């Protein structure tokens, strides 16, 4: 019957098999326990490793159950940090990150983190306490309607009305967060539910009759895509975050190599294809490479893989890709197809599954003329900056991080000029290595996300590239890094400005630097106050040595790079302009 419990689809089951940390298949006898214990058992059943959170009145029962549960809790200094750590954990691994906050302000402090995860389709499960059921709706102390507040920034949310519902709800929350187009899910648990008894029996299936993501692409559309690729003269692969979410990096590479496709990536797609591969054009869009944007503007067949034609990628839509004859759009979310551009070949499905099928159908091809054109653009308009003789150039720091780590480190960024320079000059080699707030553009994301990523991947070096503005938005999480000795290496590109704001004011507001000039404290002293090793770099010649010293240190490090103050980020497509019209260091390009 249509409304009975729904088993996982075959594709979903396959994905689950690839994600080891998931629910057990073994059925046990129900056990009598309290709601708070049931939550702990459910989280264990989901394979949760870390819970990033901050305690408070409404979650005392939950924290009490966590105390000797064996689950690792990370005490954050602000709930926003907790949400970003859970997010960074998820981005670095593909496994859901979990954060926990109390009612009222604790819960509302998560909102920016949830919105960040929502815009970038990151699986996060947020658990909030709420006031006891009898007080809900009565403006009780620390009450907030967090399910109402987070409605538009979560994939789904739940208010748990009795302890009995907990196992089903937690199972569903993790299922929804990690399948289809991933996203954050919030579970709000009134305080007294934590001490209500239930018979705990963790469900193997979820009962969500309205939720059935499509994984397998329609074969007729895949054939149409194969034909378009086979006939293309100037094809371009445009790869977004969906390719990383679905684990399609190998398939992206395989099809790119088989069909000789140039590959341009969105900010979220960086790492889906090796940045040092000869076929990589790097990032496209507002601060993308000139050659990637020219390739977009001149391609005849555009193959979008897990990308959503964001305004920062397309520029003015009516001038986007004017020579394109066929757009192939592969996305797991049907609503993305046709949202911003009309695709000629729409394929709803999981990027990896669809690409695997597509690779079989396309012939090997070479595009020497197209590549000759692209190589000319590469020679004519390389990504470049003027190296500093006396000043440390921010681009040089990003480049040096790339060189000393060999592109193998995880880089978490904040938001602004430094983020774009990191995206341009840190030519990330693999997926889940570039952790950045793409859609929402959340300043303050980098440090906590980097901490989450480092805890998730202790085997990986983690650099945080930040700016003096962004760093101060969640600087309190240095305490979390210090307390747990999380070895993130924070490179602050300190220019004494909110650099991207200043850049826009320079170009579009006659250099009226309204509140973009910014005083900052001494970051070295601040870091040392947290007991964290810190350095200051003012000379271009000292950049590498500082980075190497930071890498060698077993623990968190903050490096205050005092960089050129009024450096601009180029190329730049002014907002609402055409991708053909880019500003470079010497004015309009061409």
């Amino acid at each position, binding site marked *: 019957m*249509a409304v009975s419990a729904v088993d996982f689809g075959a594709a979903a089951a396959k994905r689950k098999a690839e994600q080891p940390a998931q629910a057990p298949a073994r059925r046990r006898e129900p056990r009598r326990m309290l709601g708070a214990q049931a939550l702990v058992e459910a989280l264990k059943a989901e394979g949760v490793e870390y819970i990033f959170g901050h305690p408070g009145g409404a979650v005392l029962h939950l924290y009490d159950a966590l105390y000797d549960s064996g689950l690792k809790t990370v005490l954050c200094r602000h709930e926003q940090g907790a949400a970003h750590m859970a997010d960074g954990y998820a981005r670095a691994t593909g496994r859901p990150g979990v954060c926990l906050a109390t009612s009222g302000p604790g819960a509302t402090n998560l909102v920016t983190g949830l919105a960040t995860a929502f815009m970038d389709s990151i699986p996060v499960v947020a658990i909030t306490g709420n006031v006891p059921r009898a007080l809900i709706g009565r403006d009780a102390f620390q009450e907030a309607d967090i399910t*109402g507040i987070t409605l538009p920034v979560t994939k789904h949310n739940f208010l748990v009305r009795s302890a009995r519902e907990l196992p089903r709800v937690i199972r569903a929350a993790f299922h929804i967060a990690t399948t289809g187009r991933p996203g954050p899910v919030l579970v709000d648990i009134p305080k007294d539910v934590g001490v209500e008894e239930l018979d705990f029996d963790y469900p193997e299936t979820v009962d969500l009759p309205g939720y059935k993501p*499509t994984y397998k692409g329609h074969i007729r559309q895949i054939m149409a895509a194969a034909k378009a690729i086979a006939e293309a003269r100037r094809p371009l692969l445009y790869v977004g975050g969906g390719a990383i979410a679905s684990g399609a990096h190998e398939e992206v590479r395989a099809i790119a190599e088989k069909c000789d496709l140039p590959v341009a990536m969105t900010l979220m797609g960086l790492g889906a294809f090796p940045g040092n591969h000869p076929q990589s054009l790097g990032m496209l869009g507002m601060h993308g490479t000139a050659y990637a944007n020219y390739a977009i503007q001149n391609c005849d067949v555009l193959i979008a893989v897990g990308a959503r034609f964001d305004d920062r990628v397309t520029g003015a839509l009516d001038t*986007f890709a004017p020579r394109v004859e066929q757009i192939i759009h592969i996305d797991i979310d049907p609503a993305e197809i046709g949202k911003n551009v*009309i695709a000629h070949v729409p394929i709803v499905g999981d990027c990896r599954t669809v690409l695997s099928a597509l690779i079989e159908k396309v012939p090997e091809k070479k595009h020497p003329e197209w590549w000759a054109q692209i190589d000319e653009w590469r020679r004519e308009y390389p990504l470049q900056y003027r190296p500093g003789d006396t000043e440390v150039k921010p681009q040089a720091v990003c480049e040096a991080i790339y060189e000393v780590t060999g592109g193998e480190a995880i880089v978490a960024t904040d938001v602004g000029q430094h983020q774009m320079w990191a995206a341009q000059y840190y030519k990330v080699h693999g997926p889940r290595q570039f952790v950045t707030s793409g859609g929402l553009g959340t300043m303050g994301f980098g440090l906590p996300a980097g901490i989450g990523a480092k805890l998730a991947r202790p085997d990986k070096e983690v650099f945080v590239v930040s700016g003096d503005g962004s760093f101060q938005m969640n600087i309190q999480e240095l305490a979390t890094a210090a307390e747990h000795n999380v070895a993130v290496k924070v490179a602050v590109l300190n220019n004494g400005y909110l650099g991207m704001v200043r850049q826009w004011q320079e170009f579009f507001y006659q250099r009226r630097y309204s509140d973009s000039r910014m005083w900052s404290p001494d970051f070295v002293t601040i870091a040392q106050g947290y007991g964290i090793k810190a350095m200051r770099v003012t000379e271009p010649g000292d950049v590498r040595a500082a980075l190497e010293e930071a890498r060698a240190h077993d623990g968190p490090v903050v490096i205050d790079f005092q960089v050129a103050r009024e450096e601009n980020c180029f190329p730049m497509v002014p907002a609402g302009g055409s991708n053909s019209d880019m500003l470079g260091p010497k004015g309009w390009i061409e």
Partner: protein
Amino acid sequence: MFGGAFGATDGKAREHTISVLVENRPGVLSRVAGMFSRRGFNIDSIVVGAAEEPGFSRMTIVLVGDERELEQVQKQLHKLIEVIKVSELDPAEMVERELALIKVAADRTNRAEIVQIVDIFRASIVDVSPHTVIVEVTGDVKKVEAMVDLLRPFGIKEIVRTGRVGVLRGPKSSGVHGDRRRGLQAVGG
């Protein structure tokens, strides 16, 4: 071949009626209404009531938009976890009804005239007081509006309308057991 394909709407905005089957859970109405306001779609009318199976509700939503907007509305509705099924009701193939209760000023001098109008419309008078009558009218929007127009000269004190509900004629169904993803097949294939 590509002129105007990006971002633009085709300009032919018209009224659409969509039927949305949802799980009957707390908050589902605000999820649906919130999606409309967040994405800038306008709802002309929304009606919610129990569906044929316990645990499910059906919403009839009337909106004005072109084909692209309609497609986005349907897809975005489908993304809501508690939405089971979304289908557009073709105006040529559906029965649509609205009910209105109209409180009209009426006394001995004009009550008979009102009764006459009510009879012609196959509506009914459901309450009489010395100075008012309440008229109940059921029908499509045109009929309800015609009735309102005719009663207006008497002095309308209050109108309560249910909003529109619709169902497909004949054996076709957008029911709990029907073809679930009809609205999305055009995209998948």
